């Protein structure tokens, strides 16, 4: 598949996809600096400004609000991760919670059974998550559409059952506890302020990864194979490799979030960290926000998590009913996602929501 004029053999698999020409580092840097304009650097600047604002905000808010925003950051990271495989590459994984659970259990088992520091356990969790993604990705990525969705769903259910039954290692259905007090603790507990910063950094990193990926050759390869896999293969994209890399990157972020979540929760059960609702929420946030965009999952995760929390506090027993109703209404009125709708509406000056409903109607 390699292009004879450009791909350097030493660059390996990634090089084949990226098809990078051999250039000196100084040349690349100079070109990059010269290419900066207000139009192409504002998203990065806005992102950094938002990050700094959120760090500053921490000093002003009470612990309850801090915990709420921590949950929002967690979902931002998860939604961005799902968007890489589900939005850009077009493979609707319904088993992403498997990586979340594996990440959480790796950290918990290492910290509890082997007294490993969190900072050593977390990278191991990411590596195991990626290994699992490659392991199940290679056979399952041959499936398309619903079949991929169900196979991944099955994989997640299977992973939960394996964790559930490996009682000597994981504690099984009885759950697992990470020691956090005194000499027992391999790493001191972060507390609410610590986890606020930790999840903020993870969320910011996942947004940055998604944004950089979207503008790279690999990102374009992902979008190309989303639109037409056979055509993408015909123009020289190694589709299997691109799919597995996208799945792996996505899984790495999710496993990392799972690792932090495990430490934050201290004590949890297989049903908590392998809860299918995590997967469903990732999908909902991405699709409602706008899949295949960087802003979409961000808007979807922030909007829906804040909405869900608001409903939980203010509507009591009716909150799930209203949440379900809102999902139905948003899906019907903004089938392509809120961000995508407003972007297209702005570009074409077509703001009619009724026309939008007609788009996918039978």
């Amino acid at each position, binding site marked *: 598949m390699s292009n004879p004029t450009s791909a350097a053999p030493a660059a390996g698999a990634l090089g084949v996809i990226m098809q990078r020409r051999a250039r000196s580092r100084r040349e690349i840097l100079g070109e990059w600096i010269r290419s900066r304009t207000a139009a192409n650097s504002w998203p990065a600047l806005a992102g950094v400004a938002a990050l700094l604002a959120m760090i500053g905000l921490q000093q002003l808010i009470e612990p309850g609000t801090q915990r709420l925003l921590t949950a929002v950051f967690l979902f931002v990271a998860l939604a961005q991760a799902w968007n890489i495989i589900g939005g850009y590459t077009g493979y609707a994984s319904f088993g992403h919670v498997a990586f979340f659970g594996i990440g959480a259990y790796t950290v918990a088992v290492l910290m509890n059974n082997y007294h490993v520091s969190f900072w050593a356990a977390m990278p191991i969790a990411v590596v195991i998550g990626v290994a699992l993604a490659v392991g199940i990705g290679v056979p399952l990525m041959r499936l*398309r559409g619903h079949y991929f969705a169900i196979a991944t769903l099955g994989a997640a259910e299977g992973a939960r059952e394996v964790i559930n*039954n490996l009682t000597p290692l994981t504690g099984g259905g009885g759950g697992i506890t990470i020691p956090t007090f005194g000499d027992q603790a391999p790493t001191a507990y972060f507390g609410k302020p610590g986890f606020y910063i930790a999840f903020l950094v993870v969320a910011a990193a996942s947004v940055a990864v998604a944004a950089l990926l979207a503008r790279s050759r690999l990102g374009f390869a992902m979008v190309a194979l989303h639109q037409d896999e056979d055509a993408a293969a015909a123009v020289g994209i190694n589709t299997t490799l691109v799919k597995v890399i996208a799945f792996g990157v996505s899984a790495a972020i999710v496993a990392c979030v799972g690792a932090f979540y495990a430490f934050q929760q201290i004590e949890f059960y297989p049903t908590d960290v392998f809860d299918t609702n995590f997967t469903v929420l990732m999908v909902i946030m991405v699709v409602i926000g706008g899949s295949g965009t960087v802003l979409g999952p961000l808007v979807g995760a922030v909007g829906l998590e804040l909405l869900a929390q608001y409903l939980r506090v203010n509507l009591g027993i009716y909150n799930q009913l209203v949440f379900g109703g809102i999902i139905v209404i948003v899906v019907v009125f903004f089938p392509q996602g809120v961000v995508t709708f407003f972007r297209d509406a702005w570009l074409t000056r077509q703001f009619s929501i009724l026309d939008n409903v007609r788009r996918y109607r*039978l």
Partner: protein
Amino acid sequence: MSQFLQAAAYGLVQGGLLALVAVGFSLVWGVMNVINLSHGALAVTGAYLAWYLNTHLGIDPFLAIPIVAACMFVLGYLIQRGLINLVINAPIFLTLLLTFGLGLVILNTLQLVFTADDRSIETSYASQSFAILTVNIPYGRLGACALAVALTVLLALVMTRTRLGRAIGATGMDRGAARLMGIRARHIYAVTFGISAALAGIAGTMIATVGSFNPTSTPSQLTLDAFVISVLGGLGNTYGALAGGVVLGVAESIGGLVLTGTWVNAIAMAVLIVTLVIRPSGLIGKAQYSGRVEV
């Protein structure tokens, strides 16, 4: 040995019941390429309807079936006509999301009306059983299984022998061509979903008769079972769901006998994934449907 025979017999009748849940799910998936995540919720709606008819009006669950089926058909028709048809041409996750949201609305409404308690329909005969040699077979489960087989055969006959069934099949194969032949696709889709909802309602009634149900854990388990059975059996063949249901039922009950803990669930998922990778068209599915999955 008698243990194995008992487990196999139990798995067989349980498989019939599960097949009844899956047959409507598989129909909607095969014809419209929609995975209906609210299928379990529709089954539980049927169960509550039958339960209400039984406890408040004293109607036997088997006699309540026509009423439940009619109500569920109307509900299903309206859901498809009013909601799912609006996003039928959108990428696949939208129909998944829409039906997920719909399931939430249905289940939470049921929970508000009937509370989250476990319910079951009490009859004098459902828990009675008769013995063949050493194997006990409860009447309720046998009746449910027989009904499942009868309805599956009936559905297969409707699909192949009647004008309506052929219109549904044609729309499933090529909607554009079907519309050019004068088939009203919107109506046909709605009828298909209505049939699926009616079958789900009947399955729910049977589940309530032979066991218990609640609006929290039953629906998701039913939807997942329907998933697995549809994949095992393959789409586009009405008898596929029956085969898939029996395979799952027998495998789970014998597996439960041999394996400790919940390893049997892990094995079931492994079987599902291997089936998908090796034979995506299922045990007796048709190739034309598996070729349609690229949306």
